[in-house]
């Protein structure tokens, strides 16, 4: 929106919610872009009150910036102040939206993990894997496991055993993979059910019938 556009009927407070004063020139620029900001912000954030607060905060920040950079009475160095305020507002809305999405993603991931760990079959599988790993790991791999359990990073774990962080991580992953492969190989087939046992009993008779047919 050009700075020479018709004055907007939208009004903002001259103080933001943090109590910071908004310069009158910046306030006028913010009110000029208010309709566009409202449209953009409401689409992403959904609440007009949040959008208005955010625009006021952006305007207050821009006011402080101008006050720090310009000696009083000097003309503002920002040629398109409404455009500048709008871009700053868009950046702030996007930052907030990304933060919101990141928090949501983390919550979903945590929920999924909790759900998986609550499944008794999964718990049994994990119990077998953990016990097998601890039984089969050598001293170094087990020590890596203890440290990782306490939240050490691989870069902290590696040097304890004279390895780089990456080498330690690869060694541990390979050890887990080997144990998993052994576990998968040692899975026994299920015991025969009544139906399969009955089928096995019938097999010789069926073969005899086939032989009769041939002769």
């Amino acid at each position, binding site marked *: 929106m050009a700075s020479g556009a018709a004055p907007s009927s939208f009004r903002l407070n001259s103080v933001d919610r943090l109590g910071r004063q908004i310069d009158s020139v910046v306030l006028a620029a913010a009110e000029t872009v208010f309709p566009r900001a409202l449209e953009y912000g409401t689409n992403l954030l959904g609440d007009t009150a949040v959008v208005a607060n955010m625009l006021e905060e952006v305007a207050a920040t821009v006011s402080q910036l101008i006050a720090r950079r310009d000696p009083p009475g000097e003309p503002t160095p920002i040629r398109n102040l409404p455009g500048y305020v709008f871009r700053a507002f868009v950046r702030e809305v996007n930052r907030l939206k990304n933060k919101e999405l990141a928090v949501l993603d983390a919550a979903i991931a945590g929920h999924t*993990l909790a759900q*998986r*760990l609550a499944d008794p079959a999964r*718990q049994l599988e*994990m*119990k077998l*894997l*953990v016990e097998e790993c*601890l*039984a089969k790991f050598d*001293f*170094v791999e*087990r*020590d890596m*496991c*203890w*440290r*990782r*359990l*306490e*939240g*050490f*990073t*691989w*870069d*902290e774990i*590696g040097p*304890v*055993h004279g390895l*780089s*962080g*990456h080498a330690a*991580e690869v060694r541990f*992953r390979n050890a*887990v*993979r080997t144990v*998993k492969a052994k576990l998968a190989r040692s899975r026994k087939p299920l015991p025969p059910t009544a139906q399969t046992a009955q089928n096995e009993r019938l097999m010789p008779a069926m073969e005899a019938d086939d032989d009769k047919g041939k002769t």
Partner: protein
Amino acid sequence: MTTKEKPEFNDEFSEAEFFGFAKSYLSEAFPNPQRVGCPPDSDLQRMAEQPVEARDAAASEHLTCCSPCFNRYMEILANLRRRKAAGQ
């Protein structure tokens, strides 16, 4: 941190799931109220600071079947980590 953390061991098991389960399982599954075969605290301290296979193998193996010792060792490692972070 220079090493890129990969969240997955593979498609089936995630690292977070493995360690999350292992920590809760080992901290509770092996109560040892009589503290049978537990190594002294000094052995755990020494192993946390500088693990040596010839000296610490038995203590490390004991942690796999004794929840009180496992929990104590986790405390020792947490303190060690805090001390290292404060020293940097």
